[in-house]
């Protein structure tokens, strides 16, 4: 391989990351607030400061132990070609997401992501995953499908996790800008300010033990459950 072609490979890998982590990927991410709408309606997240605190806590305490770690595990199981472990992880994810809307949101995003990449890659491993889902042996949660696809695309594991956290951050901020509401520049400032945190938590996820998967965020779960009964709702979760 010439120097030139490896340069191209590097760039194409970057484009793959940008593509899968693109917040505008049409999988329905923006119709879910994942509890934020309840926080805003209860006037707990109400300005730039509280939004940033919310986003930071979600990255540090929720995404790190839940979907972020799920991405890493699914990525590793895919590389090992360990279908059994993937199926178990998917069922475990289903069992961990107690709030109904969160569980369903994650399923919906997952199946849509799979639909897109199933078509783009026409990869036998992904076709298999599709088959397990239609046979109801698997639900296909978003973080898991993301982990599988990034592994198949041979995206660097750390970068895949980092991009996942970045994508989640942009989604939270975009929702907050609309819901709170905040100015566009305020939103961008928050995304800029949490860069270091995203990096730190990516490294943290890389070394987490298996028993740390699914650590409960009690108050968040409660707000997500309360969302089912909010009087007026713009978001599906």
């Amino acid at each position, binding site marked *: 391989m010439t120097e030139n072609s490896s340069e191209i490979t590097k760039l194409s890998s970057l484009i793959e990351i940008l593509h899968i982590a693109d917040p505008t990927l049409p999988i329905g991410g923006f119709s879910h607030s994942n*509890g934020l709408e309840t*926080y805003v309606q209860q006037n*707990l*997240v109400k300005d730039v400061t*509280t939004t940033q*605190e*919310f986003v*930071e*806590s*979600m990255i*540090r*305490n*929720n995404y790190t*132990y839940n979907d972020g770690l799920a991405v890493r595990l699914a990525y590793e199981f895919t590389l090992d070609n360990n279908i059994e472990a993937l199926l*178990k992880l998917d*069922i*475990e994810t*289903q*069992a*961990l997401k*107690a*709030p*109904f*809307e969160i569980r369903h949101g994650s399923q919906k995003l997952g199946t849509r992501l799979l639909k897109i990449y199933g078509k783009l890659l026409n990869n036998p491993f992904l076709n298999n995953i599709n088959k397990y889902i239609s046979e109801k042996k698997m639900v296909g949660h978003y973080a898991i499908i993301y982990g599988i696809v990034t592994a198949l695309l041979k995206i660097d594991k750390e970068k895949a996790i980092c991009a996942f956290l970045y994508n989640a951050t942009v989604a939270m901020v975009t929702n907050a800008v609309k819901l709170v509401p905040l100015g566009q520049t305020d939103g961008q400032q928050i995304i800029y300010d949490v860069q270091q945190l995203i990096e730190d938590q990516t490294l943290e996820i890389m070394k987490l033990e298996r*028993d*740390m*998967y*699914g*650590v*409960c*965020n*009690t*108050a*968040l*779960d*409660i*707000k*997500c*459950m*309360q969302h*089912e*009964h909010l009087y007026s709702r713009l978001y599906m979760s």
Partner: protein
Amino acid sequence: MERYSLKTGLREQTILKDVYFTSPFNLVEVRENKKNHLLEMMLMSSSPGLLNNDFYDITIEVIDGSALNLQTQSYQRIYVSENGTQQNMTISVGENAYFSHAPHPTVPHKGANYKARNTFHIKGSSTLLWGEILTCGRKYVAEGEEFQFKKHHTITEIFQDDVMIFKDNLYLVPEEINLKQFGLYEEYTHQGSLFFIAPERDITERMERISEMFSKEEDISFGISKIMDNAYALRVLGNEGQQLFKLFSEIRIQEDNLINQKINVN
């Protein structure tokens, strides 16, 4: 290792078939109405709580068609422990069997380090009610011990016909994680989780009843959501162990009574 195990049996009503315990445990039958189907057992302990190096090993088997409620006598205290304390609890609930357990709150004292694993194996026709309440420690001692424990890690997994249907992973290390952050404990100090599954097709009415009951309470935040058509998870944050315990007990007693009504021994 400190152990207790029990297994139900079935005659006209549920009976205690096998029981085994080592110090500090003792298990006694406390069924008030001797005609009831539901076997009610009380767990007693001569120890003030979990001490350094304690490892509680618990096995409960509720056989097909039987019904068991396991009660506790007092708050479970966890004391300072350099090497940590552990609990392993394995529970199986058979076909058309019932098990309820909503113990007193756990109180991790200053320096406590605890790891627990609760594993349930149930069937499609089993009924299970499981509650767990964790306090912040001894809030009202003179020097105040709120969140002075070292580590508290409890993993609860429920399998129905070998498929995991619910998992709760409670991990608290107060000196590393500020629990006041969004999504964790926020302005509260106590937390409780309750899981319920019944063979009935729909549990919506039960959930509405609980929502109504909890809505009347002050100083708590709660949420209840369907895990499956016939299962719900309830989470609550509050500031008083006694209040949460009372609420969970009320739900538990209602289910216990339903089982006795459903299976009339006479």
